[in-house]
């Protein structure tokens, strides 16, 4: 039995404009996949279609040859958090946890209570009275405690401070190690998730621009830093993604394999964000 999510020829049209054009891909089970793309690229639409909140104009999404749409069994194995507040406005936070416990058979109540204390979430407030950050915390706790087989996070760290973001990433990894479940993560803060994700899907203008393992992608380039003159000399004949100068130092991201390694320069892995910018800009230039 394959637990992969099979996405087959998905098309979605909004106001006569294609939001998704013939998207086909497989999201491997037991991986953390990052959905990256610029604003309006179609990431949220695709995630909403995966969990049945939106209906595609054509195509289908299956798990083990079973369509997800209108399938209570499969939908019950997916938990998606989104920036939109899906909880009833006049319901208290503690009741939202009570309901989530009822909906998800593997819900871990003690774990949720631990996280409530850790994040100082006021459970007696109504969900719409929480700040943006605490609304995100509420959604994240519900999702993590649900122990769902498929967890989808759309902009999960919206409004969270650096400490809470760091905490969330740690909790996410812990949960992933514990359950070996399938996680889809979409955020614009690429630098924060590059060490988390294993697979990357770049969506641009409703199409998949790239799908690759992060490990392979990292091999496609490297970063070099050193004094301005040394770096300038080194990168003269190279395919440069980006370069930044701070004081007398320069660092540059370069596409391609590293051939030589001068001693006066430092080398490190390329940044995912630089690759992403290069990829999406290239498409814009075309």
């Amino acid at each position, binding site marked *: 039995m394959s637990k992969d999510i099979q996405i087959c020829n998905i098309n979605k049209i909004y106001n006569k404009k294609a939001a998704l054009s013939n998207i086909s891909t497989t999201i491997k089970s037991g991986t953390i996949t990052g959905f990256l793309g610029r604003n309006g690229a179609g990431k*949220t*639409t695709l995630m*909403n279609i995966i*969990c*049945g*909140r*939106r*209906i595609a104009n054509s195509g289908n999404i299956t798990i083990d040859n079973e369509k997800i*749409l*209108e*399938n*209570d069994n499969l*939908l*019950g*194995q*997916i*938990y*998606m958090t989104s920036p*939109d507040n*899906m*909880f*009833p*406005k006049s*319901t208290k936070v503690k*009741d939202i946890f009570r*309901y*989530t416990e*009822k*909906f*998800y058979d593997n819900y871990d109540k003690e774990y949720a209570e631990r996280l409530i204390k850790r994040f100082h979430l006021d459970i007696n407030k109504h969900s719409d009275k929480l700040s943006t950050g605490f609304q995100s915390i509420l959604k994240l706790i519900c999702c993590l405690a649900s122990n*769902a087989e498929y967890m989808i996070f759309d902009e999960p760290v919206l409004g969270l401070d650096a400490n809470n973001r760091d905490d969330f990433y740690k909790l996410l990894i812990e949960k992933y190690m514990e359950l070996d479940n399938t996680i889809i993560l979409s955020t614009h803060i690429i630098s924060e998730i590059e060490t988390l994700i294993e697979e990357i899907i770049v969506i641009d203008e409703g199409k998949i621009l790239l799908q690759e393992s992060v490990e392979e992608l990292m091999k496609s380039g490297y970063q070099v830093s050193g004094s301005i003159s040394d770096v300038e000399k080194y990168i003269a004949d190279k395919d440069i993604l980006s370069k930044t100068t701070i004081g007398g130092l320069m660092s540059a991201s370069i596409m391609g394999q590293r051939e030589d390694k001068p001693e006066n320069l430092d080398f490190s892995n390329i940044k995912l964000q630089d690759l992403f910018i290069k990829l999406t800009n290239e498409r814009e230039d075309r």
Partner: protein
Amino acid sequence: MSIKKANYFIGRETFKSAKIFTLIILLLTAFFFTISLIFSDSEGTVTNGLDMSIIIYSFILGLTAYSSYVKMLFQNGISRKTTWLSITSVFIMLSIAFSVIFVLLFEILTVLFGLYSNIIFTSFSADLVGRFFPNMNYILGVLLKILITFVCLLFAGEIGFATGTLFKILNKKWKIIIFAGVPALLLVVFPIFFAFMGNHLYSRFFIGLMHFLFGVKFSIARSLISLSILSLIFMFLSRLLMSKVQIDD
């Protein structure tokens, strides 16, 4: 299994609002009863107010079902079909509970008003039963009143649910056309247009249509059948509309 989970959520949330509504009705009734005792010399008939308020409550409950329940159920992995099934089944259960509770309350109030004041307390269902079956057995009369109230509540809830869901799935242009254009056409443009043609043509057509749809003028059985069929039509319509519902990105 999923419907059980959905029913737990909708049932609990509906019970919370129904509890508050019932409390308000009881307090209002107690208030009016006290007033009628104070002015015990006055005579008259108190009718329809309370059962109309329950019907309006049922309509509003249906109208707000989307914002109150649908998003939360979608969040927790419930399909459109199960969502509709759950909302409809909770509406049926609530309509049964409300019709039993309020008809019995009306019966108690009728007796109390009869004993302590000169005001005759009656309700819409009591009016109907009294008009068509003046000599009906008391128990059968109460059961018939419960049935009439149940069908009215179900009809109001379903029409509200279908309207609320329709409002959600339409875009701005169609919302204006349907929710402003149609009432304006029926209640302003047509009456004025037909008034110029004389003979109260439109009023007669409108009243005739209402009689045809609800059958109140003819018999209770006709009325019950009409309302049941209309409820089923709106139930079917809300199922159709639910299958088109999508959450905004």
